[in-house]
């Protein structure tokens, strides 16, 4: 099954590739997956300490076109959201937007896990991990 046009578009022109400066207090980092499984996603969010909103996001992904597209897409989606809103992003929304076939659903699951890991990392850093559960 061929990749959808949206997956190819994100793969050819990935959004928000990169990393934030190490040690930035306002950044939460999530890294999920494993090289042995063929996918590793690193997703970072930069939170405005005053508004509590995610003002920027970056990603780096080792994996297939769908994995790259899923993580590229969610960096666009989380911008402007609150941490709680970001936690509500579901893998099914990602899969639907990118028209992922069943064998690529795990890529969208990984992207959802990556956001959650990034939000959790930010909350842990700022001593409010308990709030989200």
């Amino acid at each position: 099954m061929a990749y959808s046009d949206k997956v190819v578009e994100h793969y050819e022109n990935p959004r928000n590739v990169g990393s934030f400066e190490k040690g930035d207090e306002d950044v939460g980092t999530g890294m999920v997956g494993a090289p042995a499984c063929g996918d590793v996603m690193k997703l970072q969010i930069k939170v405005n300490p005053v508004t509590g909103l995610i003002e920027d996001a970056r990603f780096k992904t080792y994996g297939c076109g769908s994995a790259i597209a899923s993580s590229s897409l969610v960096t666009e989606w989380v911008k402007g959201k609150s941490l709680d809103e970001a936690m509500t992003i579901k893998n099914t929304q990602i899969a639907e937007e990118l028209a992922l076939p069943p064998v690529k659903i795990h890529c969208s699951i990984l992207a959802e896990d990556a956001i959650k890991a990034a939000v959790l990392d930010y909350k842990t850093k700022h001593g409010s991990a308990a709030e989200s559960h």
Partner: protein
Amino acid sequence: MTIGRFTTAEEIDYAVSTLQDRVGKLRELSPLWEMFKDGVDLSTIQWSAH
């Protein structure tokens, strides 16, 4: 991708430059390459299976 006696030097040059370009792009996207460049020993990372 195969190479045979009818492959020309120009075709080899094209394949090499295309590969370099694509691998460069994928490395730019890869968190593993970033960690490798930072001197992280990837075998020491506790990866989460999925």
